[in-house]
């Protein structure tokens, strides 16, 4: 009963997904997906429920066959390789722990099948792994006798002990309460840094993706909307879906007028708004002019610095909510659109009240431009919280 999981040669173990499509009958779950995950990366796949995240992971694990496209690991085509021959392990969304085996035997399962280590070595490795996830004293228990968080750690240990080239994590923290989830996020990040294995972490929690990952791919309806470092995705969203799904955004209708030096000049609500070329795509004509609510500084009409700030005048505060660290304002513009502004409660200035007239000001480098043909509400309902 010795099965080899190896047999793969080649250089850097980066995972490449090339034009992968998965159809279930007529339904396209994953549509012509292209991805490249560098070796040792902590890669997050972020997207709303049903957008094809699990399906993508299952194809990488070999549990689902792509309808079209290729999957490469370190240069080797693994598209047709059986799951038990892939150096890839999964932490399943449902954990899928073996109910008839003890925690210890669950964790040892993969190493036993590979048959590469001696009995003594196996015991040592299982012990070390249980120590890593702090479950030594539960080794003899059955999964049903553990809490949700403990089961999740068993699932993690069971996959991690095999030192796969790629570890797939399918919303492994979904069942945990907020506090435990935060603790496990840090733990996972620490383990990944320690062992240096490529992690592909699927989640629909944008905050989780941003805290943990080096690279985030935002997925929507079977395609990757945008991919990049968390700061980049947050600061320079390239679609309305990303702008709304990852945090919140003010998107205002505008027109690109000219390009000047390293800035675009746009006209928004009758005033000129400058957008840095660094943060914006090269667009012409109608655009959505975007700015994150926490980047907006509210000023009394005409007050404050003039030159370097974008300024939209004629707003009136229509709602104020105090949320502890910050105060969130809704400002109604003359056009009827309501814009958001989040301010830290520094106490430097008396907060505004409903009905106050205000100007919205922000820096050119915090402005991003998006194609006006996109749905301004895309991803908005999905992105707020969970």
């Amino acid at each position: 009963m010795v099965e080899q999981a190896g047999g793969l040669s080649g250089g850097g173990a980066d995972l490449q997904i090339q034009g992968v499509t998965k159809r279930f009958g007529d339904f396209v779950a994953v549509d012509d997906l292209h991805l490249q995950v560098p070796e040792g990366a902590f890669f997050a796949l972020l997207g709303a429920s049903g957008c094809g995240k699990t399906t993508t992971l299952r194809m990488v694990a070999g549990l689902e066959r792509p309808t079209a496209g290729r999957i490469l690991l370190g240069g080797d085509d693994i598209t047709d390789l059986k799951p038990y021959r892939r150096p890839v392990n999964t932490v399943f969304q449902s954990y899928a722990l073996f109910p008839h085996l003890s925690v210890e035997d669950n964790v040892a399962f993969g190493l036993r099948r590979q048959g590469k280590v001696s009995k003594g070595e196996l015991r040592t490795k299982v012990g070390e792994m249980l120590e890593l996830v702090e479950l030594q004293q539960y080794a003899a228990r059955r999964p049903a006798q553990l809490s949700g968080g403990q089961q999740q750690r068993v699932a993690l240990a069971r996959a991690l002990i095999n030192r796969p080239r790629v570890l797939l994590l399918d919303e492994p923290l979904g069942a945990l309460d907020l506090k435990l989830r935060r603790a496990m996020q840090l733990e996972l990040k620490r383990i990944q840094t320690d062992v240096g294995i490529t992690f592909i972490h699927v989640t629909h929690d944008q905050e989780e993706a941003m805290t943990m990952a080096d690279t985030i791919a935002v997925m929507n309806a079977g395609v990757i909307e945008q991919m990049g470092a968390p700061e980049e995705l947050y600061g320079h969203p390239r679609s309305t879906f990303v702008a709304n799904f990852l945090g919140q955004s003010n998107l205002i209708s505008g027109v690109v007028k000219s390009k000047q030096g390293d800035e675009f000049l746009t006209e928004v609500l009758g005033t000129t708004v400058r957008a840095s070329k660094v943060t914006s795509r090269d667009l012409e004509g109608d655009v959505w002019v975007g700015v994150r609510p926490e980047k907006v500084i509210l000023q009394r009409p005409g007050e404050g610095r003039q030159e370097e700030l974008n300024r939209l005048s004629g707003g009136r505060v229509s709602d104020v909510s105090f949320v502890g660290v910050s105060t969130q304002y809704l400002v109604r513009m003359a056009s009827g659109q309501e814009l958001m502004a989040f301010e830290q409660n520094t106490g430097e200035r008396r907060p505004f009240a409903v009905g106050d007239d205000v100007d919205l000001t922000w820096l050119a480098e915090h402005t991003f431009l998006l194609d006006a043909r996109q749905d301004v509400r895309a991803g908005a309902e999905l992105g707020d919280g969970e």
Partner: protein
Amino acid sequence: MSALSHVPGPTGGTPDVQATDPGTERRGITGYLLMLPGTVWLLLFFLVPLVTLVSSSLYDPSGSLATGYSMTGHVQNYADALSEYGSTFVRSFLYALTATIACLLLGFPLAYAIALKAGRWRNLMLVAVIAPFFTSFLLRTLSWKLLLGDDSWVVNALQALPLVPDDLRLLATPAAVITGLTYNFLPFMVLPLYASLERLDVRLVEAAADLYASPFTAFRLVTVPLAMPGIVAGTLLTFIPAAGDFINSELLGNPRTRMIGNDINDLFQASVLPTASALSVMLMVAIVALVAVYVRRSGTDELV
């Protein structure tokens, strides 16, 4: 989204789960009341006949129904019965065991297919498994007698084949008896197996594949252990009645394929009460002992 709902319950042979049943402390009188009808039923129709049976197995064997029996505590009945019918006992258990294994080999793939592969045909296939119960046991076995008879088309067709002797007989052979037993008890194997396999979480099999288990290894280490309650229940439901059966041997066998059920039946018919009773008691004790050992070894004590 709640992954907790996927947490496997204490099925699949986990006798040491310390499940804290919230109802444990509140059972009280209600529990006993619920047990009452069953208890009365068992007392009347199981315990009373059992006592009668055991006592009649100790009667003086020189009596008869006409002259009446006297209770002499004649333990020698057992030794006598055993020396005379011991080989029949062995044969009965051998036939029952063979039929049980055959049922398992036929029933497991069938139950697996119905539970996991049949899709929308599942219910139809289940009905097909139960369908034989719509006609009587006796009638079905009689049909087998026709089917295996010396002039049946089955035998004629087989005889026409090369390498098959022209005087081939199917009826009145041990094979016929075992085939009959297998046929008659197959549903008792398939249904509990189906119940176990239907609850099998296929994601566990996928997890095994993800952890380097080949399909065969995954079957051996995940599917079979999780189907264990069904396997144990199925083999018991097949073996126990098969070991005491006499219809199949009567209709499909010959005098040398007699099973213990045949002897007990004949002895009761001939009113040799003490020997018949002693054999019945021994059959029961033997089955209970075998079952106890079997259940203990397969680690599914919660079934009993």
